[in-house]
């Protein structure tokens, strides 16, 4: 089930990597000291793959995602998408932010329509219909005309999720998108994101610190440690769908628990390593 300590990842040798990360490090200056956040990271991500990155806080997961999005440049190494070196943000890589990027002067509906307005081409009614579809999906139809200031944290998160989903990016980068959501909404969104991924054949890179979520959603799970390295990649071959009745089967359940246990041990080892270093 696991691939051992293989940083070059689990997609087959014949498959062309959609995203390739080679020897990527990222240093930040803090109080005059260089801090390595991402350390010699190697990762290949294939087309239509659902990769989940887990790791303790401060392991550089978010920074790695930001580099793929093009918001941060690596200190060394290179990141490529479809063979092209990433030079900055682009419409092919949609990012769902950990912070809420809602525009405070627009209602939920107008916020979700924003990406469609940037794309252009469609008329207002079509945009509205599409936006409503995604707002409905994240369970916010009752708040379409509210402004961000009137929304709770969970509602803001759902709105920003709809905002990015509606633009249907080829690569979806998600930084803890379901953190701090109630479990019911979270389950709905797990189902929806799996469905979207299966229907739209996009590639998803999903950062989280919740292992249940990681096992539920992923094709592969990359574990990052405190040193900012990808310490191990687990292949997740649990059958899909992983929600609903399938979960009740003993075999599925056992495999689920086993994989989560292995990932958890790896995460713990990664966090512990740092404790020794400091």
């Amino acid at each position, binding site marked *: 089930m696991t691939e051992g300590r293989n940083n070059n990842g689990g997609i087959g040798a014949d498959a062309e990597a959609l995203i390739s990360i080679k020897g990527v490090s990222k240093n930040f200056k803090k109080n005059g000291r260089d801090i390595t956040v991402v350390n010699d990271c190697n990762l290949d991500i294939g087309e239509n793959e659902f990769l989940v990155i887990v790791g303790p806080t401060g392991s550089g997961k978010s920074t790695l995602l930001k580099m793929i999005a093009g918001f941060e440049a690596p200190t060394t190494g290179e990141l490529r998408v479809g063979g092209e070196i990433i030079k900055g943000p682009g419409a092919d890589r949609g990012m769902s932010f950990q912070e809420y990027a809602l525009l405070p002067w627009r209602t939920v509906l107008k916020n979700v329509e*924003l990406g469609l307005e940037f794309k252009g081409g469609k008329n207002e009614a079509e945009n509205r219909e599409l936006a409503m579809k995604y707002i409905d999906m994240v369970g916010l139809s009752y708040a379409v005309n509210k402004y961000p200031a009137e929304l709770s944290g969970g509602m803001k998160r759902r709105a920003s999720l709809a905002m990015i989903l509606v633009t249907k990016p080829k690569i979806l980068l998600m930084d803890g998108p379901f953190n701090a959501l109630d479990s019911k909404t979270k389950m709905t969104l797990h189902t929806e994101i799996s469905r979207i991924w299966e229907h739209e054949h996009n590639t998803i890179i999903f950062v989280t610190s919740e292992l249940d979520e990681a096992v539920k959603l992923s094709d592969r799970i990359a574990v990052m440690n405190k040193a900012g390295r990808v310490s191990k990649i687990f292949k997740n071959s649990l059958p899909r769908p992983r929600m609903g009745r399938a979960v009740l089967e003993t075999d599925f359940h056992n495999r689920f628990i086993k994989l989560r246990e292995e990932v958890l041990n790896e995460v713990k080892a990664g966090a512990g390593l740092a404790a020794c270093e400091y």
Partner: protein
Amino acid sequence: MACFSEQAIGIVALLLGVSGSIKRLNMADRIEKKQQSRAGKIGVFLMDRSFYVLGVLLFLVIWQAASTLKLFGSDFSEAFSPLAAALALVEMGRDGDIVRHAIPSLRRVLVSLAFAILFALPVGVLVGYFKRLEQLTYVVFQFMRMISPLAWMPIAIIIFGVGDLSVTFLLWLVAIWPLILNTAHGAGRVSPLWLNMAKTMGARDAGILRKIIIPAAIPDMLTGLRLAVGVSWIILVPAEMLGVPDGLGYFILDTRDRFRYDQLIATIVVIGAIGYLLDSANRWLISKYSWKI
């Protein structure tokens, strides 16, 4: 004597009532407002309103007393009193003096504001958005901002001649700074998160400007507009004392030369009232078009 003491008791009672209400408002304001019924809300609204009116009335009473009782010395003539001013105002309204002078004043302020907005908003957005441009202009703008436009008067007259053009130029010169600096502040406040998000959605520069930067800066633009209107209206009076044949500033000097101090006071009241209305309009704009975080 009996009558006087009754009045005194009345005044004391009024003052007690006033201080009591103020305390009530301050201390338990929030809790009370939540629990109030509709009738209670209307009561508080009327109470609040009546204090605004009371303030104006107190001011008028003190003012009238000052001229009737010569509180500020014998030079504070009866012609300075609000009653005399009210009568003069009616007279000026009837023979059209108010309109004849208020219209050119408003025209000068609005025309100069329009030009100031056309110039200052684009400059402000650019300065706010591009850090280098802000650094390039910072000292000069802060320096220019502190110079009263009246100091430029001789130069304005050399370039534009005596008359409307000079006055409009001076008003423009005073209005652009609050507009530029506030707009720049607003455009500079745009969250990098919004820009990143727009870029991941494939937005181009024009789209980012139109849908992110300008709307983000609108509350600050409106604040700048409010300040600009305020200083323009204040500078208007002295500017109109310099070689124009009409306007409220000109009329102030005119009434002085004709020894019509009641009309002078009435003109001052008109200037204050128009200024207040302009500011109210701005406050309404701000409350209507400002977004909140």
